[in-house]
């Protein structure tokens, strides 16, 4: 490939003098200083940027809101410390949404024995905030080994398939599980994950055969691979990375960590875009003057 776009502007002199000429050749350490300044400023004294939820995020919220009151939401928390930066805030925002809408939910994990404790702590804290009670408004089925086998059993007989909960209590004894016997008692499954191939099990064994609605939350790296399911309607909605978590936090009107980070990101992106615009304005206007 030949000379790529981008040579020239070694200095302002090359671009011609004048204000717009100078705007084309801002020394790079000023740019670095600006970026550092914006990040530090926004971390310490944030000015909130508007957050408009994307269609995919709105879909998750709407799916939660649409669950009939006699049915449960199952949140499958298949993540651990390695992807916690994204999946943690996602889980938190989803739990908040369930509590806000007054839906009962059960946590479980198919793929992350180490991660379920982290999800449990998140749910516990949110429940305390909303005054929700364990066993009545929410519960934790714990980590269940067996992937597809667990789900096939779950569809037929929930108390048997799950057995005991996170604390070792048989789930059948929990008040909220009254009347929830099989898959018909589940109104929505939300898969939060940094692991590949778990969504496919839910799709193949639960969503496909029984038509149970499914929503999901993925790390930004994983998300693009799952858009086809969103297009096809197999999934009601999807949270994409920290951005999805921030949008969800905004929807439940409880801005947290994800909103803070995305706010800094928004400002940093705006700065970079502004720099590109200024550079181009300089290029066009200084060029016009010379002609």
């Amino acid at each position, binding site marked *: *490939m*030949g*000379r*790529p*776009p*981008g*040579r020239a502007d*070694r200095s302002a002199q090359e671009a011609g003098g004048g204000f717009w000429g100078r705007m084309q050749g801002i020394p*790079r350490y000023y740019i670095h200083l600006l970026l550092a300044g914006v990040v530090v400023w926004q971390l310490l004294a944030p000015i909130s940027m508007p957050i408009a939820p994307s269609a995919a995020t709105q879909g998750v919220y709407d799916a939660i809101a649409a669950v009939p009151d006699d049915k449960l939401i199952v949140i499958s928390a298949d993540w651990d410390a390695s992807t916690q930066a994204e999946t943690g805030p996602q889980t938190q925002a989803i739990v908040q949404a369930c509590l806000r809408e007054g839906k009962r939910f059960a946590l479980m994990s198919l793929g992350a024995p180490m991660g379920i404790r982290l999800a449990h702590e998140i749910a516990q804290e949110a429940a305390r905030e909303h005054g929700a009670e364990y066993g009545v408004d929410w519960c934790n089925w714990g980590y269940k080994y067996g992937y597809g086998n667990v789900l096939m059993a779950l569809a037929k007989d929930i108390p048997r398939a799950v057995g005991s909960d996170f604390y070792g209590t048989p789930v059948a004894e929990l008040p909220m599980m009254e009347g929830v016997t099989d898959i018909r008692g589940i109104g929505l499954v939300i898969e939060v994950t940094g692991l590949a191939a778990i969504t496919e099990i839910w799709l193949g064994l639960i969503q496909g055969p029984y038509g149970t609605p499914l929503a999901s939350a993925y790390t930004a790296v994983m998300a693009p691979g799952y858009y086809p399911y969103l297009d096809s309607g197999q999934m009601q909605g999807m949270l994409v990375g920290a951005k999805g978590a921030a949008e969800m936090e905004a929807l439940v009107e409880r801005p947290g960590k994800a909103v803070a980070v995305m706010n800094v990101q928004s400002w940093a992106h705006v700065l970079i875009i502004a720099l590109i615009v200024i550079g181009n304005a300089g290029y066009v206007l200084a060029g016009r003057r010379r002609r």
Partner: protein
Amino acid sequence: MGGLEHANWFMRVLFVAMGATIVTSVLLAQRGRAMFVRRIPGLTAIEEAVGRATEMGRPILFSPGLDGISIVTLQALAILAYIVRLAAERATRVIVALRASEVYPVAEEVVREACEAAGRPEAFRPQDVRFVAEEQFAYALGTVGIMAREQTATTFLFGGFYAEALILAENGRALGALQVAGCPDPVQIPFFIATCDYVVIGDEFYAASAYLTREPTLTGSLVGQDLVKAGLIALVLAGIGVATYLGQAANMDHNLLVRLLGGGG
């Protein structure tokens, strides 16, 4: 899935056909068949870049990237040989910054031989072939330090680069060096385009030694590669044809070509 742990018959046939095409065309070229290679602008720039360092009386920096001894690195070293030859003829130093210690002896030998081939064995300075650091970012910082202290006038970045690419190229640019970069992996190319004067993308990297040396073996190989690519395009078109006939739902499970390549349900 399955079928990828070992080859199936279709892969064997395909592989032998591709290999035979390339080797045949190499042998034909070695027997004197003339082969055409079109102009590749990024590679023409190498001579200009070496010339600039000569004019300014300052050294050249070459980095073969992070990979150990791999096909990418060997190709990078073939480009290095050409650059050192040009530079030695013009009494210009080339500093090679290395990340993998197993590449060190190979790079040293390449530089020494290139100096000899240029007829100037005395131009070889062992201390200019340098191991910098094994750790990715220590390598980046150390190489930037070399650029700054040696005031290199030209930077060549050819090989397997990862996140450190932008650290190297952006600092080289700040020092005013003329930079030529090439990396087969497309991921770092956008950052090279933003910071370097000339960029060699994708397969141009592998065409480089043929283009630079005009060695019949290599130009022959290039022609063979083009034939293989044409064959693969035909295969893709066939696959698309079958997919269009089957339709979206049945495609992945029933497309014969998908199954032959180890995919499908």
